[in-house]
Every structure is written in structure tokens, then in C-alpha cells.
């Protein structure tokens, strides 16, 4: 079932459209920046954008910061919300279950396919934006001085290319985890309804609610547990030395979300009457 599910996902036009759009937005920004050379001043605009003009190698980080708040959650919500509810509304759920595919196995396959989707999404954005960034902005002036491809971290120290690669890899993993947490919630919502849009909108409502509560001082007590709370912690990876504290908290909370949401999905789905 797991292999079948992955194959099914890769054959869905919708999935490829999501990936294409995710990669297109940063590319569009890169083209505009390169054409106008009007970078936003440091501290305004998206993270890293001001530094990008000087060195294209930082563009993947800028691109991730661009898609993270809205674009990425939307695509995750669409794919995860569709996971079970989509099969239910198409009627294929009952045929899968009588094939038979065990209900736990079905859920696990769906979660895994969501995980692969988010990982590939983040990787694709990183890879294409690296290419676009380097093509548009070059390797930066530091290349001549501080050795090949050396770039400045947010704290000013110079990062080696290997260092940058490592930090980018951790970023990809961290963001994939954050999005997987959202995807697991989407999977849970998807078992509650037979309508994929309802599940998708539920996930987006959660994101919006999180973003709305986060800046409120009154919500400080629950702030660390909001789904969106630690989404920006990865920016600390580009400081020198790396500030791990927020990242660690983020990993714990997001992994907690995955576990709790998957547990809830299983609890609901295991004994659910399939009347779709």
C-alpha cells in the first residue's frame, strides 16, 4: 500500500502543480530583484532578501522564508486534507479497505506520502532557488577575498561552503518536520470529513489562528505550543554560533504535533463507519 500510495501521489497533476508554484514564486522574486537591483533594506522585506543581492548562494534561505508563511502551508493543507477525504469522496476508500488494506496501514501510507511531499517540496524550492540565485546574483564579492564561495552569516562571520551546505540541509529537515506536523493535523481532519476542501480549510484555519495568537502578549502562556510558534527558528541556523535553543523546542513541539495528530487520526479512523 505504501508503494502504491507514493506512486499515486507522484501521478497526481495537482501535486506537481503545487511544487511548480512553490518554486515559481522565489524565481519570480529573484528575477525582479536581479532586474531592478532594488533589494529591500536590511530588517525589512523577507529574511535574507537584502543579503541575497550580494551573494546568490543565500537565496535558498531567502526563498524558504518567502514560501514558508503562506504558500507552503497551503500546499501541505491541500495534499494532507485530500489524503483520506479525497478517497472517501471519490468512493475509492471503500474499495481500498475491502481489498483489503488495513486501516492503520492506510493511514501510515498517507502520512508517509505527505512526508515525502513536504520533503520534496522543501528540497525542490531549495535546489531551484540555489540555481536561480547563483544565476541571478553570482557568488558574491567574498569569493575573491574569503576563499571560494565564502559568505557572511547573519552575525557577520564568514561561512565556508561546506558550513552553508550543512546549515541548509538542517534547514530543509527542520522545515519538512514543521510542515509534516501540519500535514499530520491535515490527515486527522481528513478522517473527520468526506469533503477534502473542509479538511484543507480546517488546516488553514489552524495556521491563521496560530499566526493571529502568536504576537498577543495575552496568549504568551500557550504561545510556545502554537503550531506556527517555532516556524522561524531555523533562521538561527544562519547565525554564528548557531542558537540551538529555539530549534530544539521547535523540534519537540512539532514532533509532538505529528504524534498527537496521527494518534487522533488513528483513534477516529480505526472504528469509523465508512458510509461514503
Amino acid at each position, binding site marked *: 500500500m505504501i508503494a502504491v500510495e507514493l506512486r499515486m501521489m507522484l501521478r497526481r497533476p495537482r501535486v506537481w502543480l503545487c511544487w511548480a508554484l512553490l518554486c515559481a514564486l522565489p524565481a519570480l522574486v529573484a528575477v525582479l530583484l536581479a532586474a531592478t537591483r532594488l533589494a529591500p533594506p536590511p530588517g525589512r522585506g523577507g529574511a535574507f532578501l537584502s543579503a541575497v543581492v550580494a551573494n546568490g548562494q543565500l537565496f535558498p534561505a531567502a526563498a524558504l522564508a518567502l514560501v514558508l508563511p503562506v504558500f507552503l502551508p497551503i500546499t501541505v493543507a491541500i495534499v494532507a486534507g485530500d489524503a483520506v477525504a479525497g478517497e472517501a469522496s471519490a468512493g475509492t476508500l*471503500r474499495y481500498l479497505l*475491502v*481489498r483489503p488494506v488495513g486501516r492503520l496501514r492506510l493511514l501510515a501510507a498517507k502520512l508517509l506520502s505527505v512526508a515525502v511531499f513536504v520533503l520534496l517540496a522543501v528540497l525542490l524550492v531549495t535546489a531551484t532557488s540555489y540555481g536561480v540565485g547563483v544565476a541571478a546574483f553570482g557568488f558574491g564579492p567574498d569569493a575573491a577575498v574569503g576563499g571560494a564561495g565564502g559568505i557572511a552569516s547573519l552575525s557577520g562571520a564568514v561561512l565556508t561552503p561546506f558550513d552553508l551546505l550543512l546549515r541548509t540541509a538542517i534547514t530543509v529537515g527542520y522545515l519538512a518536520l514543521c510542515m509534516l506536523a501540519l500535514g499530520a493535523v491535515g490527515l486527522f481532519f481528513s478522517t473527520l470529513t468526506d469533503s477534502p476542501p473542509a479538511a484543507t480549510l480546517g488546516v488553514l484555519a489552524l495556521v491563521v489562528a496560530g499566526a493571529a495568537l502568536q504576537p498577543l502578549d495575552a496568549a504568551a502562556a500557550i504561545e510556545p505550543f502554537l503550531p506556527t510558534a517555532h516556524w522561524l527558528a531555523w533562521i538561527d541556523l544562519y547565525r554564528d554560533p548557531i542558537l540551538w535553543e529555539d530549534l530544539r523546542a521547535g523540534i519537540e513541539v512539532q514532533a509532538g504535533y505529528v504524534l498527537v495528530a496521527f494518534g487522533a487520526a488513528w483513534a477516529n479512523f480505526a472504528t469509523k463507519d465508512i458510509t461514503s
Partner: protein
Amino acid sequence: MSVDGAAITDVIATDGLTKRFGRVTAVDSVDLRIPEGVRFGLLGPNGSGKTTLVRMLLGLVHPTSGAMEVLGRSMPRHAAWVLPQIGALVESPAAWGHLSGRANLRLLDAAGPGGLGRLRRDRRARVEQALERVGLAGIDRRPVRAYSLGMRQRLGIAAALLRAPRLLLLDEPTNGLDPRGIHEMRALFTELNDAGTTVVLSSHLLSEVEALCTRVGVMDAGRLVLSQDLDALRAPTGRVLLRTPDPATAVAVLDGRVERRSGDVLTVRHDDPAALNAQLVANGVRVSALEAQRRSLEQVMLELTGAGADRVDRGRGTPGAGAPAGEVRR
């Protein structure tokens, strides 16, 4: 009704099976026995609980109370053992619209037990055979979303046949098929049944059940109100329908045994059409047609199921009802 249940194993046996959805009781303490090897027709108006019963047998819906055994093992506990031996069509066929029919069957087959491993080698052959059987061998790469209703129905039946099931559970299998398609599928089900597959089909079309099944169950408002062999159900009524060009003579000869006369058709109280024929011919009455009257399935249904529960479907044509196939002699 299932006195023979002891000798032949039951493929389906339910015991006080009940399902409530909130306040609605969809299936109400049903005790159903279906012996192996029969062609069973589950009849009843729409909303009488047929589909819920089928879903429970397949482990999709969990019973509120009662127990059931399918292929001799309790469900849904032994679903992993039972379900691979069942081919099912539930309510309507369904497929992934963006894939071709062939890709649909391959993925569905791969999703089940055996997955991409053990059974992989014969998958291609199995899929082709199933498509061949339902008359879709020549389908191209068009996505299912472009299929007609009839093609989808055939694809759904092909999916049910994929793993050479011991038991076929088909809910309204001829929906959307034209008369030729219905005839083809009936022949296919009969052929599979001859090879040992038990066929259970639920329908509200009496003609379909009458033409295919050897045994019928009737549901009404969630209850199983009848489960009997079709032959017994349609037993002769002890009357004979006689068509003759000499009705007046016939009435005189038969002396009081004629119950009704309408034109040249007489309804005669008589158990033996052959003896009646001999008597008439001996007395110079010419006989155009003679047949033992049988209860039609439609009559049975009308007597058993609640009035007005589903008038639209019940009124649909039942070719067997008007002229039951009895012996016709000249």
C-alpha cells in the same frame, strides 16, 4: 428456511445483526444464511438496509449488536483472512479518475495483500483477464474520468473479479448497463457460479433477480422478511391458465372448476396441466396454450414489503411477472 445449512457450509451467517445510525435503525436483527454455491438475490426497496448489510459484511460499517460469519470466520475480526477471498461492488463503482482503467486495476491489486511482492508477476495477467471477462480488453490509456457509466460499471465488476474470489458481493451490478451489457454480465455471473463462486447480488430490480438467482432474501425497513429458494417461492398456485378458441365448450366441460373467464383465457383450478389437457382434448376442446400459474416475484414482494415504501422502483418492468415461464402445450 436453511434446513440444508447443516450439510452445506454457509458462506454468510448473521445472528441478530443490527445497525443503528443515531435514532435510525438501518438493519434490524437480521438472521441471514447464505449457503455456499448459490446465486442469492437480496431484494428490497431503496432504504430497506441492503447496502448497510453489505457494508457490515465487508467490515466497512461496524454492527451495533449481533454477530456475523463470512466464509466461516467471524467478521470483522478475521477481515484480513476473509476479505481477500471476496470480490465486492459496493453501491457504485469507483476509480481514480485521473488514471486509466488498467492503471486503476493494477494499483488496486497492488494495494492489497501481497503488495508489490509475491503476486507481482501475475498481476499483469490477472488484470488483463479481468478486463477480458467484463468486455474491456481493448480499453486504451484514456483516464477513467472520460468513461461512460456502463464502462465504469464494467470496470467495477472487473475489480471485484481480480483475485478469483470465492464469494462475489455485488450491489446493483447492472446499473448503467444497456440490455446487452446486462445480458453479458448475467452470463458472466452464471459462469462464475458454475465454477463454484457464490454470487450474492443486491438489487431492487426484480427482473434481474428473477433471471439470475436461485435463492432470494427480501428486506423491508431493516428486517429480513423472507429468505427462500426462488423455485419454492414461485411454486404453482394450483391454478392453470388456459387459452382456447372454444371457451364456452371448455366452461361446460370443466364444470365449475373455472374461476375466471376473460375473453378466451380461463383460469382453471387444477393441479395437473397434463391431465387437464388430456381431458379437454378428449372432449373436443381445442387448446391454444396451457400453463401452470405461478406466483410472480412481484406479487411476493408486494405482499411482503411495506406499502408505498418505494413505489418508483417497484413499478419498474418485470417481464417475468405477466407471463411466467411454465409448460406451454398445444
